[in-house]
């Protein structure tokens, strides 16, 4: 048995000084820390009473400071039952017990803890991961300062119908708050701050309560429309021993996910009747493909009707090269909206920003029938206005579109007569020709500015495509409108993981961490993850590059380094032109130049491969090729490309 050596505070400090010296030796070349001047030495010595107490024998009654079963271990059992692959977190004291249990009791596997340097990154990583993998990641954060950091990313996920499973640390009982930090990091109602843009939350007061609410939260998050949820993990429940009664009785409820709601059969039959009879039906897809299966279902519906699909690119809904990709709402006599959050905007024109006043007009023909299948009709909140304008439609089916499509396809097939079939095939042939002509125009347009410097976004798109077209690639960034939508025009998108859509609420700072989260999900499938990264977005929380490097998450990042917040540049120019003055001041408050940011060096600083800045288009292909070789070794790589504004 090892001999016990009492260690008093002075002895501990002496040991710590020795350890520090050892650590300094390890880093060798680290600059020496300058000794403070005598008058700056303010650390008090232990009081005489404390020094005396540390040198005397302990009292006969000794409190037990250890436990074989902290409550957090049971929380980990609950969390493991929900099959999370990863937990994203920036460490925080209010969930230190759960942190320790995940690592030591849970073995840091399923879920594995990922070190994030900002809670906004944690949530956005979970956002991007879900859109590839189709299941949520868990995020841990302080119930106060951590959640405040995370809140914008949660709002993005909420507006984008993405479930994020958020566990917040908090110290509810005032008797357990040890100092001013713990008081400042405690809150009466932790989830209140994000309740307007989360679907459900709870603040469990016992471990069995935690188990039941955790399972319930998962089920609610994963019932369409998907949304973020919050569970508070009270610090006392985490850190104190699991009560004896709970050790015997606590159980984890069985999880049974709800089937998504399908449309009413009568309404589906009516929609089929209108669609089959229509001369020019148009399908508008928002988040129609909720799962990979959704793409095939939409293709089947479009081909059954020979109807064009306008993909609004909130998800990968429809193959980009499909001959029915396109169409015009202006000529439609029936418009079918599938999970289109902004259906009113899809069917109306609005006064441009350069005009005074505000008026809108329908872009549909008078008498055109409008149908929506939208799970958002089943759920909503009032404060944040992401729901958009009220859509006046002729048939509103409150249901999940993907779950409704099989019945709608069957109903349409039953109604198609040989005459209708012939008319539909003629329509389809015309649409295919229009689609081919549009692609030809896009290819010709891409030639303009081909040799320009800064490099045109079309050139970057084509150079990238040339390097990835034979790979199993996944584009994980939003390119519409930030990259003039070029990849969506020129690349061959077919699979659900090849495009993820947009931010949700246009909260900038989503792009880089969402890309890392998506790359994390792609890693186990060996896909080549491609991220076209806006410079303004990366600068919100660039430390996510370190997370990618640290956790060996392979991803090719191509910087869209246009050195400004260009949407706002355009707004500023609009306002100046409207006011008849100072149109040359567009760069004030919007430029990200002087000095220019060196993103290759930034990447290297975070421990990953960096190349650039590339300003000559001829250098771009070789740079991308080299970076892909790095990514194929399992590492992230970044190529800084100085680009045209759009």
């Amino acid at each position, binding site marked *: 048995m090892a001999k016990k050596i009492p260690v008093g505070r002075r002895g501990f400090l002496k040991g710590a000084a020795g350890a520090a010296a050892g650590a300094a030796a390890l880093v060798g070349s680290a600059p020496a820390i300058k000794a403070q001047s005598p008058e700056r030495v303010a650390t008090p010595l232990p009081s005489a009473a404390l020094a005396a107490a540390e040198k005397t024998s302990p009292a006969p009654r000794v409190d037990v400071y250890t436990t074989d079963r902290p409550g957090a271990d049971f929380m980990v059992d609950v969390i493991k039952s929900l099959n999370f692959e990863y937990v994203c977190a920036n460490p925080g004291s209010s969930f230190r017990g759960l942190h320790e249990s995940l690592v030591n009791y849970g073995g840091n596997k399923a879920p594995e803890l990922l070190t994030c340097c900002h809670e906004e990154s944690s949530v956005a990583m979970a956002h991007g991961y879900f859109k590839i993998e189709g299941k949520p990641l868990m995020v841990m954060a302080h119930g106060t300062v951590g959640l405040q950091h995370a809140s914008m990313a949660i709002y993005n996920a909420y507006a984008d119908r993405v479930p994020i499973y958020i566990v917040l640390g908090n110290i509810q009982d005032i008797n357990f708050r040890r100092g001013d930090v713990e008081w400042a990091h405690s809150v009466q109602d932790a989830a209140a701050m994000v309740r307007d843009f989360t679907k459900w939350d709870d603040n469990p007061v016992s471990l069995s309560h935690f188990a039941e609410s955790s399972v319930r939260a998962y089920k609610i998050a994963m019932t369409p429309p998907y949304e973020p949820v919050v569970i508070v993990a009270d610090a006392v429940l985490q850190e104190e021993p699991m009560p004896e009664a709970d050790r015997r009785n606590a159980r984890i409820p069985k999880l049974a996910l709800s089937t998504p709601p399908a449309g009413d059969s009568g309404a589906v039959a009516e929609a089929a009747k209108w669609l089959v009879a229509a001369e020019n039906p148009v399908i508008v897809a928002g988040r129609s493909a909720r799962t990979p299966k959704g793409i095939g279902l939409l293709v089947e519906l479009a081909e059954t009707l020979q109807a064009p699909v306008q993909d609004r690119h909130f998800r990968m809904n429809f193959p980009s*090269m499909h001959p029915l990709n396109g169409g015009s709402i202006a000529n439609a006599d029936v418009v079918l909206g599938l999970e289109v959050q902004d259906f009113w905007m899809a069917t109306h024109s609005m006064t441009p920003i350069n005009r005074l006043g505000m008026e809108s007009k329908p872009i549909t023909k008078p008498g055109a029938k409008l149908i929506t299948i939208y799970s958002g009709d089943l759920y909503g909140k009032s404060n944040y206005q992401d729901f958009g304008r009220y859509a006046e439609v002729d048939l509103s089916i409150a249901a999940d579109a993907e779950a409704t499509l099989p019945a709608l396809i069957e109903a349409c097939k039953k109604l198609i007569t040989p005459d209708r079939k012939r008319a539909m095939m003629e329509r389809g042939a015309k649409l295919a020709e229009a689609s081919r002509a549009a692609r030809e125009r896009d290819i010709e347009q891409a030639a303009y500015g081909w040799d320009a410097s800064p490099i045109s976004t079309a050139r970057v798109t084509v150079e990238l495509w040339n390097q990835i077209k034979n790979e199993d690639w996944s584009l994980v960034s939003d390119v519409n409108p930030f990259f003039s939508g070029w990849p969506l025009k020129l690349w061959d998108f077919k699979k659900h993981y090849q495009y993820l859509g947009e931010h949700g609420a246009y909260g900038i700072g989503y792009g880089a961490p969402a890309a890392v989260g998506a790359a994390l999900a792609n890693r186990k499938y060996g896909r080549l993850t491609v991220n076209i990264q806006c410079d303004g977005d990366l600068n919100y929380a660039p430390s996510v590059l370190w997370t990618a490097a640290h956790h060996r998450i392979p991803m090719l990042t191509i910087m869209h380094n246009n050195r400004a917040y260009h949407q706002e*540049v355009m707004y500023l120019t609009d306002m100046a032109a409207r006011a*008849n003055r*100072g149109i040359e001041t567009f760069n004030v408050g919007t430029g990200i130049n002087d000095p220019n940011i060196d993103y290759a060096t930034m990447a290297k600083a975070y421990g990953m491969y960096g190349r650039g800045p590339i300003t000559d288009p001829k250098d771009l292909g070789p740079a991308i090729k080299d970076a892909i070789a790095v990514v194929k070794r399992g590492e992230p790589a970044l190529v800084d490309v100085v680009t045209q504004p759009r």
Partner: protein
Amino acid sequence: MQRIFLAAIVLASAAYAQDATGNADNGKRIFMKNGCFECHGTVGQGTIAGARIGPPPLNAQGLIRYVRRPPGQMPAFTEKVMSDQELIDVYAYLRTIPPAKPAKDIPLLNDLRAK
């Protein structure tokens, strides 16, 4: 028919006269200083936010008319912020931009047609 042809010659000559007075170097400076490139690209190649204008599809007077009263998303720029002469200079710059090579002569673009 002949009168229409003559009118076209006169208009073209007028446009040429306007173009001849434009200073392409100054036009490029104005194009960049006033932020025209933000939507149209530095060589007028066009983006999702602004039409392709390099080389210009309109004559100088057409360009001025468009800039003063644009029908679409573009802000209207009055004479207070951009004079006619400045726009003529911009037009002269846009005319220096050569047409794009046909996509068939750019191998990476031509490859896209294989689909």
